């Protein structure tokens, strides 16, 4: 259960403002794709178009194509709700539902759209998802405690458990470790390495070492100046990107000699 995404000539607009222009990208199944680039270049904007989360923002829209295993994500009659079930998302700040217990948080997505789940299935799924997110051992004795009673790193893993509980094809992560300490960050990175056996993962990060450690392919976004649209400058295997990138700007950015 993982699919590849082909992005073709994608433009993203916020009203009149063209935020990201002309992205062509192949996101391979069962791999980790890292998106890097300076602040404001449109990484989050682009990422959110992959599960149509940009539509939450009034007046935001895209032109171009994003095709997941032959299915056009923007095709007529495609329900964004369905797209988001297939393409899950983990946010920069951990956001478990504070009004729900840990177990209910894991089941939050499964219970949507009138889906019913028997109690024993639910128990299994909670254990499976939390184990998948490397959190089971830490929380198995307090599944009925509120999700907000966990540490930041645990909360983020809870969010990952919640995202994988609905068995998506693709998992998008927008700076999932930027609010975490180094140890929690390592825990999440290990988790990403495991998850890629089953999922297609796209991760935005500001941390070069992290991109180098976890990803198979890396895409570098850049922006010519404020008010200009962001572009995908270069995309290649991570090892190539970090050793011999073909564009000078990539090399400057990666080596820290930037702007």
């Amino acid at each position, binding site marked *: 259960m993982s699919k590849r995404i082909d992005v073709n000539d994608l433009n993203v607009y916020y009203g009149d403002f063209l935020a990201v222009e002309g992205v062509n990208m192949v996101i391979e199944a069962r791999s980790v794709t890292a998106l890097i680039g300076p602040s404001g270049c449109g990484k989050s904007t682009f990422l959110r178009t992959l599960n149509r989360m940009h539509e939450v923002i009034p007046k935001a829209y895209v032109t171009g194509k994003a095709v997941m295993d032959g299915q056009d994500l923007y095709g007529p009659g495609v329900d964004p*709700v369905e797209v988001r079930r297939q393409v899950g998302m983990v946010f920069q700040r951990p956001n*478990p*539902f504070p*009004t729900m217990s840990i177990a209910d948080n894991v089941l*939050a997505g499964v219970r949507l759209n009138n889906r019913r789940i028997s109690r024993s299935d639910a128990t299994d799924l909670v254990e499976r998802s939390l184990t998948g997110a490397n959190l089971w051992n830490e929380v198995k004795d307090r599944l009925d405690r509120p999700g*907000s*009673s966990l540490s930041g790193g645990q909360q983020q893993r809870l969010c990952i458990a919640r995202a994988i509980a609905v068995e998506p094809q693709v998992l998008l992560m927008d700076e999932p470790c930027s609010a975490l300490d180094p140890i929690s960050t390592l825990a999440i990175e290990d988790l990403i390495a495991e998850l890629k056996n089953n999922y297609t993962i796209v991760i935005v990060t500001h941390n070069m070492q992290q991109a180098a450690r976890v990803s198979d392919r890396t895409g570098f976004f850049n922006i010519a100046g404020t008010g200009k649209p962001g572009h995908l400058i270069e995309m290649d295997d991570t090892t190539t990107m970090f050793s011999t990138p073909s564009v000078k700007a990539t090399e400057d950015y990666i080596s820290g000699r930037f702007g």
Partner: protein
Amino acid sequence: MAVTDSPPSEPEAPPKVRAGRAPGRLGNRVFQGISTASGIFILVILAAVAIFLLVRAWPAVTAAPSAFEDVGFMLGRDLWSWVWPLLFGTAISSVIALVVAVPLSIGIGLFISHYAPRRLAQGLGYLIDLLAAIPSVIFGLWGIQWLQPLVSPLFTWLSTNPATAWLEENVGPTIFSGYQAPARNILTAGLVLAIMVLPIITATVREVFLQTPRLHEEASLALGATRWEMIRQAVLPFGRSGVISATMLGLGRALGETMAVLMVLSPGYLINFFLLQPGQHQSIAANIASHFPEASGIGVDALIASGLILFVMTFGVNLVARWIIARRAEFSGAN
């Protein structure tokens, strides 16, 4: 290092922790004084009201039952058998008001906060606030002139439809039995109250719903929630304690509302659930207003005693609300 033309300055003495008082101390003190005084002032007022009620009600509370025989409006009853029906009337009219107003307010609040386009939402918001500014006498007039004729056919139907008739025949009288026009009954009063408490509840829940963290809404949507599911998953749980507070605000207003009930309801002093019959119920506040001018002696004390009970009732309602909110504070998102 930036290079400057200025000559090298001699090494400065390291900054010391300044002795003496920090500047702005006075402002702090003044402000603290004012806010403490305001807090105490509120407590004092509350205590003064409570003490006034207690002191003035005491003669009635301790009087022998026979003492009230001469008080005309008490119909020869002693204090408690006179007050219970009033308490009941107050409670039932307020409950009707909340049963109607709370779901409606949540609906309107959600529509304004999460469904309506920006412009429309703003307009609606103003409209609701305007509704709050209408004096209750006007609501009373409106209830008599407009609402009563409007609901009369509905009430007739409720009272005479086959289901009610069947129940009356086989089980006994229902809450809808025995409607008599005009609709000067407790249900009409409750409906008028519902309209009156609608603005305050709507305005409060709308604010609460608007404060739902974007993060939680997006968490829900990213899991594949529809808008309504997102509202159930993120907005309503987050707004739960706010909805309870808003309900209590509304209840406070409904319990104490005098004019509209006085004008709409044909009073009675019974305890029953015949919502559509006139002359069955009366609320404490409306009762005080209608009898205070003619009351004298122990009658005044009795009315004040009923006021004390209303006071205690509102107080109790608030305590319970707080307890409900506190009980699940851990899951509230405030931490």
